[in-house]
């Protein structure tokens, strides 16, 4: 029960990796704000599935690109909870396309959600975490930032941006005992990776992943909640790859 008495905000919390993070946090006693772009009923249904866990989930509908909404939501939670211990920025999208065919909207959407959203929520929690001299932020990066695929200039740029933001903010907030880290998932079985998995074929993918399996959202959630917890009390500014060894390369 690493999160008993602690509070957390998880963006993109209704689906995929975000949802697995919420499940892990609430299983270990946290009060969690599950923030997602999808309809509130969808988030509520996801929360209901975890109702037997010892923690508590409060779902919110929000577009992470909306900075005012991020501030309003975080301030509301801070007034209510008097502390924000953990932020996990998991909201993310893909809008793949080759550069020559990519529309500006595809670029703006991905940068806006993946990087802009991460900025907005980091910005909003900075003051409460600084005031409390305590906090842990975990951003969702991707191995795609350093080992990019074709057709993902927007995604790779957004996740590269997340890495830079993570390291820089870690330095800024370290003197306030606020840690900032990222997890960089490889091939994980979520809705977002379904197209790539379908295109390449799972059998082929497993051949190039040293651990010989596609990762599960829970694999990433375990790493993310490790970084979020006091178990990682001396870890800041790190990008932890959770990819079954995929990025090791070689044979």
């Amino acid at each position: 029960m690493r999160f008993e008495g602690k509070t957390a905000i998880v963006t993109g919390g209704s689906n995929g990796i975000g949802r697995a993070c919420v499940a892990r946090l609430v299983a270990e006693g946290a009060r969690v704000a599950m923030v997602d772009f999808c309809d509130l009923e969808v988030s509520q249904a996801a929360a209901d599935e975890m109702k037997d866990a010892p923690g508590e989930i409060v779902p919110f509908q929000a577009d992470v690109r909306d900075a005012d909404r991020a501030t309003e939501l975080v301030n509301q939670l801070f007034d209510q909870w008097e502390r924000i211990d953990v932020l996990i920025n998991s909201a993310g999208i893909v809008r793949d396309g080759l550069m020559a065919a990519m529309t500006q909207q595809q670029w703006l959407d991905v940068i806006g959600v993946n990087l802009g959203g991460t900025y907005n929520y980091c910005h909003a929690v900075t003051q409460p975490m600084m005031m409390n001299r305590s906090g842990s932020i975990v951003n969702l990066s991707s191995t795609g930032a350093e080992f990019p695929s074709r057709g993902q200039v927007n995604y790779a740029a957004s996740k590269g941006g997340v890495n830079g933001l993570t390291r820089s903010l870690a330095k800024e907030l370290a003197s306030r005992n606020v840690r900032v880290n990222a997890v960089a998932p490889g091939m994980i079985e979520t809705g977002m990776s379904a197209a790539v998995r379908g295109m390449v074929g799972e059998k082929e993918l497993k051949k190039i992943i040293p651990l010989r399996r596609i990762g599960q959202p829970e694999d990433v959630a375990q790493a993310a909640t490790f970084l979020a917890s006091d178990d990682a009390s001396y870890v800041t500014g790190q990008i932890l790859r959770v990819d079954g060894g995929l990025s090791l390369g070689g044979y």
Partner: protein
Amino acid sequence: MPTKDEVFEKIQTALVDALGVDDEDVTPDATLVGDLGAESIDFLDIVFRLEKSFEIKIPRGELFPEDVLTNADYIQDGRVTDVGVEELRKRMPFANLDDFAKNPVVQDFGSLLTVADMCRFVEGKVEVTD
């Protein structure tokens, strides 16, 4: 409506909490950077605490207008220009800039703000009784 003594006490608490200094270190003449060891992020921390304590809003950059010191229009060869000093006086009516104006080296700027300046800054934002 707080008295001047109450303003000082609240500022003292904010500085003790933000900077980890002792009560007795926070005297009116103490400089924030030189004597109390404040760094740039500390000014934000102090502003957050003053906002909460006095229930006021303090626009970022108002207490410590760093943007002036990074503006090429106001800086030349590591010194604040006459126009820059005028801008600082306008932006920081609560601070005594006379000594700094005699030799306005940018690096020395951080050392001039005192606890008494901060008290005047807050007194300009809240109604104070004697």
